[in-house]
């Protein structure tokens, strides 16, 4: 059986982070961008938990991870509300086209 070490966790976290970035950069749909943000938050969570387990940090990492989950939920709620409002205003959630502040 393969011993699962810190590196594995970090690699998974890195992959997840990259995917999140990729989603944020490439998606036009605001909801998709938000989902990318969630992915990044969760990659950070994995890092916290992994360092909590393999480092000498005690349970602090896990506590922070929980905190981030709660924060992510709150963020999602607020962000989705914003996205809804945007949609109401512009009948569109495509972030490329919402550029009224430019100009």
């Amino acid at each position: 059986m393969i011993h699962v070490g810190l590196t594995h966790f970090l690699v998974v976290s890195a992959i997840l982070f990259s995917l999140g970035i990729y989603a944020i950069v490439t998606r036009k749909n605001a909801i998709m961008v938000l989902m990318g943000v969630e992915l990044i938050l969760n990659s950070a969570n994995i890092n916290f938990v992994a360092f909590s387990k393999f480092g000498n940090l005690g349970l602090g990492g896990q506590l922070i991870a929980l905190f981030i989950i709660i924060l992510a939920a709150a963020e999602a709620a607020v962000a989705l509300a914003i996205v809804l409002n945007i949609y109401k205003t512009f009948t569109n959630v495509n972030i490329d086209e919402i550029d009224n502040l430019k100009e």
Partner: protein
Amino acid sequence: MTEYTIILLSVIALFIPLLGFIITLFSGKKFPKVYWFEVGVTGLGLLISIIICFAKLAFYNNQNIISGFQWFSIGAADSPSRYFIELGIKIDNVAALMLLVVYIISFVVHLFSVEYMHGDKRYNRYFAYLGIFTFSMLGIVVTHNFLMMYIFWELVGLSSYLLIGFWFEKKSASDAAKKAFLVNRIGDIGMFIGILILFFTYKTFTFDSIFSQISQGHLPFDSTAWLTAAGILVFMGAVGKSAQFPLHVWLPDAMEGPTPVSALIHAATMVAAGVYLLVRIFVMLTADAMLTIAIVGAFTSFISATIALTQNDIKKVLAYSTVSQLGYMVMSVGVGAYAFAFFHLVTHAFFKANLFLGSGSVIHAMHHEQDIRNMGGLRKKMPLTYLTFLISSLAISGIPLTSGFLSKDGILAGTLAFGKLTGHWLIPVFGFTVALMTAFYMFRLVILTFHGEPRDREKYEHAHESKFVMAAPLVILAVLSVFIWYTPNPFSPDAGWFLSSWVKTPHTVVPAESQFNFMIYNAAGESALHGEIVHSELYTETIHWAHYPAMLLSLILAGLGILIAYVMYQWKKIDVDKLTEKLKPLYNLSLNKWYLDELYHATAVAGVIGLSKVLAWFDNIIVDGIVNGAGYLTKLTSKLSGLFDIYVVDGLVNFSAFFSGFIGLSFKRIQTGKVQTYVVFVVFSVIILLLIFKSF
């Protein structure tokens, strides 16, 4: 009467005409009758001057009354080059008599003008000008120093200018005024230089202290030549003011002024100021200076007498006659006949003023006709004018029982004595020739004006005798032209009080070697006291010797002149026109005043205009060229600095703006406003940073 009172009275007499001038000038518009104030002031001055003259001659006959005060000083205190400038009054016999003469003439002219100028639109201003003239003339008379003399000299010139140009609407009048002023200026420059030579030598302007320093042997630059120069230069002032050749040309033109002015200024007083000046400086004239003066005077009297022969304007004849008589006086000073020069000044003032006022009366009656060819027969219409005019004509011609006979005879005797003692016989020859011509032209004038048949009927019919205020001055002056005022014996001027006790020739102060030997005072003589002396025996004797020949000859010549005038114009035995035709060149020379005006126009005036043209050219080309060049240079540098501004300074500013713009434009692309782009930048930046800091 104390000396103090006399000085006080002279100051009052000097300044009241000024008061009259100021009040008449500034209240003339409001009070149209204010000219009576001016006349009254002059009358008051006349009274005062009578008192002064009487007091001086009666109580202080041998004593000069001098009073002065320091006006200011130049130079540092205690410095040896300190100059004290004094003002003051000197009343000697000459000044006292002159004061009286000026006031008498001034007063009668004021009276005469009341009627003559009646209806003139600047009536009061005319009287104000007479006032300022009287003031300035009196200043010349009473002053005791050269500076005041010069100041009043110029004031007299100014008032003469104002009065000649009184009818300045007439071009000829304003031209004549200008001419008089400018010609006088030429003489005044010489006078000023002469005064400065004396001032810088003697550090004072006062006559008496200059003369006493000369008599102590102190000479300008230690040279009698400089003393001669100073004398001649001061005499130049007299040449201008007394209308001597070559500066006499202004006086005939000055007849453009009102006729009473001609009587007051250009016959009796102002033009005599030059002679008065010579009388004042007589004691410092060297032999050379006196000879120069005598020659100038003789030539002037000759040249102007010849011109007077053919003039047709009544005032022009009198004007040239005045120049001629002034030449007599100057000549008389030159030959050393000091007392006769002053005597002739006084007598001439009265009879010449009378002649001018008489001509004014005629001109007034003939409605401003001045050409004697249009007159004639006025004797019946204007008997009083005729009579007074005749008396004065007799006086100027030198007929016995008149004042003119006495003074003229004295001058001629003086020239004769001078000729005998020095060998300059041309001077008496000129003198006697002039006596002949004077008698001729005066009686030509009298006959053409008053005798014969009227040649202009219409004007003759309107002619009338003048009113009282015009007639009274004529009578006064005619009475003063009779011998009795000057001497009890009509054939011997020396017997009279005028010459025997009032006016005595002063002692020359010039060093003996540069004075005529007959002028030098004989040290053995007794009356050197009180600053006056007798001539040495030689001159006195010679004058006595000359007295009877001169009297006889001048009588014959005057009679001859009058006879010729009668033959030619009264009895018409000689056809004047034919004679004129025969002597055409001479006649033209005389009629055209020896072409002197033309000569001056061709030389002096054309010279000045030519010089002005050269200067104008210099101004236009050189000065303007420099100015324009400076302007062009400024423009050029401005252009250059403008270019510098536009290309370099503005270039820098624009470049920095452009550069910022360029930078902004290039970086503008980064600011897409798209969050995703920013994220990409952030990610890549982080990656790059990580790669950089990995090694630490």
